[in-house]
């Protein structure tokens, strides 16, 4: 890139004199438009970041983390979202288990059993799942787990809804990263007389682990901010609840209520604090994902590129 840049620069500077004024003007105008567009894009985004951090920091306090919504009162105010934070952690944990088990298995299937007749349709369906709106997932889980009372409004129902959203994210990450593991590694394992499942589980999967971890982190970041699939499934709970078969609160749902259905203006302030916590989770996840996806994962990258 750098080499090309310097090269092209010298070429274009060498030719500047021959470029007609009209073309040069067009060039400048387009640069101006592109720069202007970028600024227009960045303004609301910068505003959102700034306002969430600023308003969030103003209203965040210790009570916010150690008290529950039960303690919020129309008379005295106060309270916190401990119940929602714990609820989100537990439901995301359920989602992660579902996402990892089904997602990794499907990723292995798509990458390691490419000759199986179902591969094509599974890949398409997994892609389709990626694009299904979260609110629709909530409706489906309502039909499957709430109306049937299996087990009714509960953290488990919310966790399963989030898990369904997480599956395609992990499938994609697993498949992509397994494809990058050089065939030579598999061949070496098989040549040693290892059965194929051992090769997959003990050689291929570990070689791809960082990529899968990255996918899992991004999946966690995605679902921990989702409120739509929880609206009709997890019900909410003003108290700290740890039994997954009972109704459970979630942080994004709490932010939704505190922003849109606040009993008092003070709760709007707490919504900003909740948004700041969500933003922090996303930020940390992104940094972690970046850390794990640094290109140091494969021990034999050369073999990969040599494959052609």
């Amino acid at each position, binding site marked *: 890139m750098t080499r090309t840049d310097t090269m*092209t620069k010298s*070429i*274009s500077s060498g*030719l500047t004199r021959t470029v007609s004024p009209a*073309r040069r003007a*067009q*060039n400048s105008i387009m*640069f101006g*438009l592109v*720069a202007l*567009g*970028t600024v*227009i*894009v960045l303004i*609301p*985004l910068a*505003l*959102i970041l700034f306002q969430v951090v600023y308003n969030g920091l103003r209203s965040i306090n210790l009570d916010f983390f150690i008290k529950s919504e039960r303690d919020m009162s129309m008379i005295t105010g106060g309270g916190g979202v401990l119940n929602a934070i714990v609820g989100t952690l537990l439901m995301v944990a359920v989602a992660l288990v579902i996402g990892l*088990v*089904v997602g990794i*298995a499907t990723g292995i*299937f798509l990458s390691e*059993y490419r000759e199986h007749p*179902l591969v094509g349709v*599974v890949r*398409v369906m997994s*892609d*389709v799942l*990626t*694009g*299904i*709106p979260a*609110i*629709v997932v909530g*409706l*489906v889980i309502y039909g499957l787990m709430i109306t049937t009372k299996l087990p009714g409004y509960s953290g488990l129902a919310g966790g399963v809804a989030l898990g369904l959203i997480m*599956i*395609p994210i992990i499938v994609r990450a697993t498949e992509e990263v397994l494809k990058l593991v050089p065939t030579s590694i598999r*061949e070496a394992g*098989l*040549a040693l007389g290892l*059965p*194929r*499942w051992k090769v*997959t589980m003990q050689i291929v999967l570990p070689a791809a682990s960082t990529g899968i971890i990255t996918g899992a982190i*991004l999946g966690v*970041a995605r679902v921990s*901010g989702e*409120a*739509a699939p929880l609206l009709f499934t997890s019900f909410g709970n003003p108290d700290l609840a740890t039994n997954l078969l009972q109704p459970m609160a979630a942080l*994004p749902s709490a*932010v*939704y209520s505190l*922003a*849109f259905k606040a009993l008092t203006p003070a709760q709007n302030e707490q*919504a900003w604090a909740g*948004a700041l916590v969500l*933003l922090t989770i996303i*930020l940390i996840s*992104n940094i972690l994902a970046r850390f794990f996806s640094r290109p140091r994962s494969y021990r034999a990258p050369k073999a990969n590129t040599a494959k052609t």
Partner: protein
Amino acid sequence: MTPTIPTPPRRSFGMNSGSDNVFRNIIIGLSSLVLVATVLYGFVLIVGGLPAFQREGIGFLFGLNWDPGKGIYQALPFIAGTFFTAFGALLLAVPLSVAAALFISEYAPRWLAGPVGSAIELLAAIPSVVYGLWGIFVLIPAVRVFQVWFVSVTGVPWPPTGTGLMSAVLILAVMVIPFICAISRDVITLVPNDQREAAYALGATKWEVIRFGILPYARAGILGGVILGLGRAIGETLAVTMVIGNANVIASTPFSSTATMSSIIASNFGEANETLRPALIAIGFMLLVFSVIVNVIARIVITRLTPVGTR
């Protein structure tokens, strides 16, 4: 453990050990859950929504009257709301996203491109409720100021409440910009340098390089990203619900309150009775169909239209 004969192991499918078979079956069993889930989605929604489809017939799709009090459920106001907001948002978002993607990948120096690119990726991951919160307390008041000014200058008697179609379009645009921008940037970065060098060698200006060397090459990928962005905009729920005004009618002006398919589900499903619930599930089914169609088109565009250039 039975020793396998070390034939060239590229396709060693025929010689599974017993444990291999077990493993294979587990993997296939778990993978088929993806199929089961997808089929289940359609099944649950179509069964749940059937009473509404049966009662309303074709009017469910093309009728404008949504009147829970009388038990009439015609969903066109929400289908229209979804399309107005999604396409309105794309109209704003696409040129801006592509501009920002070009700036990051072609114009900006590396020290600037890196952070700006990361920031935009981060913004694509911000949850819907956070955008909604910002929409309620920052965007809506700003939109109201504009609307009051607009009404006072033009005399057009549109209700300047701030909530409504216009705010929904704006918040959706802000939300899909990072998404489309991130995809476009990836696609533009993948354009082989030969393209740039060739154009420069012909004496092209920077813009001409982009216009004739890069954009034609990246067009399919960007278009695919735009369609995926459309899918996002169609399914986006809470941020829209928080700013659109939740009126169960088609928007008669750009300032009017209205609703989308996803927002009517979000605002009404929790309290729906036995006749309203099937209608909302039926809307959910249509939302599913729309999002599947949009995503399939996006994949086709990306795989079919990408030019096979120099590799």
